[in-house]
């Protein structure tokens, strides 16, 4: 084989590979990005139904309830403006507490958010940034309304 055509094949192979990789990454992004919404956005119907997304906020005081099986938990997550009821089956993270920040991932089903994953904050002072963001947004909205 001539050096020139060999080179052409190597370069061609490389370019084809690059395109394949880019296509792969794009389609993976398309299908697997998890968007984040605040409780206010969810109650305004801005969150997708039937698709996985995340909600951040604070666990409403006094909202944690366990069902008889012990492993199904109901609680509410709030950004201080709106409240979204959540159900979750499984063990909760160690730092999950009422009145503290949390992020839940799952889907909306009939007005209830069915969480598949519950993330709590990592240290005792701060909320996960997403939860803090939600509260901040709600404060901002409340402020605009009161004007």
């Amino acid at each position, binding site marked *: 084989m001539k050096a020139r055509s060999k080179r052409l094949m190597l370069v061609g192979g490389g370019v084809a590979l690059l395109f394949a990789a880019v296509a792969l990454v794009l389609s993976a992004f398309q299908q697997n990005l998890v968007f984040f919404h605040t409780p206010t956005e969810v109650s305004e119907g801005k969150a997708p139904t039937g698709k996985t997304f995340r909600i951040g906020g604070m666990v409403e005081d006094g909202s944690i309830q366990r069902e008889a099986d012990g492993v199904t938990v109901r609680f509410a997550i709030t950004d201080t403006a709106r409240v979204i009821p959540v159900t979750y089956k499984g063990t909760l993270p160690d730092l999950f507490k009422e009145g503290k920040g949390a992020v839940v991932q799952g889907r909306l089903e009939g007005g209830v958010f069915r969480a598949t994953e519950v993330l709590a904050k990592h240290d005792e002072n701060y909320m996960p940034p997403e939860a803090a*963001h939600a509260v*901040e947004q709600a404060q901002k909205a409340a402020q605009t309304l009161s004007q």
Partner: protein
Amino acid sequence: MKAKFLVPLLLFFGLAGFLAFGLTLNPREVPSPLIDKPAPNFRLARLDQPEQTFALEEMRGQVWLLNVWASWCVACRQEHPVLVRMAAQKLVPVVGLNYKEVRGDGAISTRGMALEAETTMAIERARRWLADHGNPYLLSVLDIDGRVGIDFGVYGVPETFLIDREGRIRYKHIGPITPESLQTQIMPKVEELRRAG
């Protein structure tokens, strides 16, 4: 030098640009929606004399700081010496908002605890902490359930609000006050507000 050999360098600079931009997006520095708005009014029990209350409007006519703290907060311990030094130099009056003293502490379960019991415990803990570390506050008030904190948009401790003579929030400092932030951010704003009359 052939142009194609510069490609890695250019790619890297693009990435570095994004990272630099990312640095400016410090999630802690979200501007508070309350800036330049009247501070939410409150009336809360005082830590030193729980039978008496303190209300925001009592500070009217002064430029002052509202510092949110709790004995369980690690970072408060970090900023506390700065506050103590500030108080010794009488730079600016600081009112402490003791935030969720008991229920904020991960080690204590308040489930089934009566509010009075919680208050007693909060007073005891907060006083002991101030006795141990010094009390830089003009006075502190007790926000047992964190309601006032929520009104102020507090999402972590410590936070500090700068409030002007008319009772408007002019600046919000998130995280511990360092000698540097005091000198470069807080005090210049205090001076400015004082001059503004």
